[in-house]
């Protein structure tokens, strides 16, 4: 009894609190596998329930100094978000289609391609998705929430995209910093406003050499090609193709590195009032997870391939009959089996991807974080309401931000 009194008078909370992820891999896998299987009889609709369960698990096992977050969103909300997105997108698509047919000057219309509308919508939705998730994240009984406009954010993001393209990617650090600043300044924990303190220059200093390496491999390949062309090398057409492909593995090998550098820089800039975050995420921290992802994908594909060819061998006669256009119960069941195999392949790859890219990377990042001045949140007073779910629906319908 007295102990609790003392802890209230003099904050016993240490100035530094480590973040940790306590979720068991097996538990996450169980949620993933059962959820994926339920997607088959529900034509994929179960995905909203699956994602909600995964989020609840991830949030609840993410702890700051032993205190866990909580995800308060529901699957029904996600389903409604998807239906709203359908209601928004279907008229756009249909209208565009009908206009394209009716309008006399088809060429004039083709100059406002649908892709452009979708691109703007995607930036808009990405902000709304973040707002949606933030407002459903609760810590110590107080909600995170966000102000700011999805359209204003989309405008900024588009301008920065143009700048990034014009500078061959050099502007990316400043783009990321500016957008993250916008997001964090509009993020609140109860009554406490967030902010982002890192600059684009800081990210540039950490990562310019990776950009240089990637660029060098592309320029090197081009130079080699020009050289071969100049000396009229034999078989230039064959070699040329191979050489142009060379930068791809280089860029792929650099990807986990770039992601780690980005993530650490991003985490270290996060502030909520006086509360600061630091991270000791090593540059190579993501390689382990990526290797596991690659090897388990290969392993899964091998097993799947063996089973599939075995099945093909067993049903070889039925398959021949099928090729001749014979339609019977037997060939029909072969078609159904084939469709199920295809589904199993898709779901299996989805499970592997979510397990490593979702949970795996999440755990690595969370475990690298130390939070300081945590006692500053004691002053937070509850504020904000859960925001709408249109963003999540758009993200689902437009097939981006897949995963968790």
């Amino acid at each position: 009894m007295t102990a609790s009194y003392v802890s209230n008078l003099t904050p016993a909370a240490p100035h530094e609190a480590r973040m940790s992820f306590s979720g068991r891999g097996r538990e996450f896998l169980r949620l993933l596998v059962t959820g994926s299987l339920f997607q088959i009889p529900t034509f994929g609709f179960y995905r909203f329930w699956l994602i909600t369960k995964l989020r609840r698990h991830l949030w609840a096992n993410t702890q700051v100094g032993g205190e866990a977050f909580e995800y308060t969103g529901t699957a029904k909300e996600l389903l409604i978000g998807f239906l709203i997105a359908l209601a928004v997108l279907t008229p756009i698509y249909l209208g565009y289609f009908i206009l394209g047919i009716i309008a006399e000057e088809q060429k004039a219309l083709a100059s406002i391609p649908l892709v452009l509308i979708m691109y703007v919508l995607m930036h808009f939705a990405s902000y709304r998705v973040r707002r949606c998730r933030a407002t459903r994240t609760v810590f110590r009984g107080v909600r995170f929430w966000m102000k700011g406009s999805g359209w204003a954010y989309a405008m900024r993001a588009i301008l920065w995209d143009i700048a990034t393209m014009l500078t061959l990617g050099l502007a990316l650090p400043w783009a990321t910093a500016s957008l993250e600043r916008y997001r964090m300044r509009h993020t609140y924990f109860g009554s406490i406003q967030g902010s982002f303190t890192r600059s684009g220059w800081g990210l540039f200093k950490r990562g310019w050499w990776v950009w240089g390496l990637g660029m060098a491999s592309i320029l090197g390949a081009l130079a080699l090609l020009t050289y071969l062309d100049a000396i009229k090398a034999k078989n230039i057409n064959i070699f040329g193709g191979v050489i142009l492909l060379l930068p791809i593995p280089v860029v792929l090998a650099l990807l986990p590195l770039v992601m780690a550098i980005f993530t650490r820089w991003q985490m270290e800039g996060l502030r909520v009032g006086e509360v600061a975050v630091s991270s000791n995420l090593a540059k190579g921290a993501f390689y382990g997870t990526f290797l596991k992802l690659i090897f388990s994908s290969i392993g899964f594909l091998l097993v799947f391939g063996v089973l599939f060819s075995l099945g093909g061998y067993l049903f070889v006669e039925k398959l021949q009959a099928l090729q001749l256009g014979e339609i019977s119960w037997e060939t029909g069941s072969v078609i159904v089996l084939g469709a199920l195999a295809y589904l199993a392949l898709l779901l299996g790859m989805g499970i592997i991807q979510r397990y490593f890219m979702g949970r795996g990377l999440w755990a690595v990042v969370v475990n690298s974080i130390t939070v300081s001045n945590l006692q500053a949140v004691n002053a937070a007073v509850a504020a904000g309401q859960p925001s709408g779910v249109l963003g999540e629906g758009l993200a689902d319908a437009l097939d981006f931000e897949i995963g968790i």
Partner: protein
Amino acid sequence: MADAVFYDGETARRRTVSLKIGASSLDLHEGDDWIASWPTGAVRRREAASGVLRLMLEGGPALARLDVTDPGDQASIRAHCARLELGEPKERTGRIIFWSALAAVSLTLCVVFLLPIVAERLTPLIPLSVERRLGTAVDNQVKFIFGGKVCDGTRGLAALETLSARLRASTDVGMETHIAVLESKIPNAIALPGGRIYLFKGLLDQAESADEVAGVLAHEMGHAAHRDSLRSLIQSGGASYLLGLLFGDVSGGGAVVIATQLLIDSAHSREAETAADAFAAQAMLALGRPPKAMGLLLKRIEGNEKKLPAFLSTHPVTDQRLKSLEQQAPAHTGEPLLSEEEWRALKEICKTS
């Protein structure tokens, strides 16, 4: 009793409280101060890290939480709070499956029963100019599927034009028709919306006289005149769009592709085929040529091919269809539609010189 942690949902203050677990309520005290009493029937569990029992009060402050870590307290709470799991509705998977199945069934019913009616009613309302544009879109897709190889032997084209001109003169299609030969081994012929007609090289290869080809062309012109292709396109396009929605494809990007494939692969209704046959017979009779030639060609293809093109396999050349073509013989014999030389040129339209 061990301490628990209480968040009141109003501030982010962490309050260490002592618990008193009774049969009717959970009493929270901070030191000597009473904070709250939660009726055991309204206490609900929330998702938390393993080892922690996180509770909330149904009807209380939405975000007020009580984290209990002591195993003894947890057991005692589980014993006293009977409706602990109600807030987190036990996976009602059965209901989700039921509603998904219902959605799928209702969409399928729409596709099977509603769409044909809609297509039937919509087709006459669509202006020719719109049909032509739709046809262009489908045409691009068809060219993509077959690698865009339209045969263009100069003399073959001239012969094809002669043949088409004679057919056009003897019928009223009601729209401009464009006839071309696609380089494909499949013995098939299709009419796209907007009056574009493709003969496949495979069909030309198996034809033994100009009358046979003319019959098939006239049959396809019949489909164009009756706007069968437009009706099919509305139907298959609508079906693939609706079913695509079910699987989350909102853009309908897949729908265009699938609809075109369906248009190529599947036959029109039996009534539409009979009507097109009648149209073809009329055209041939007007030219003084035998309508049964087309029937012979179809019968020959049916005999030769192991794998039948869909337009034959789903609507086989029934004896009834053959008989009705045979019954109609021209009263007078018109001059041949193509000269011997022109016919050879047409057969070799795909050979590039």
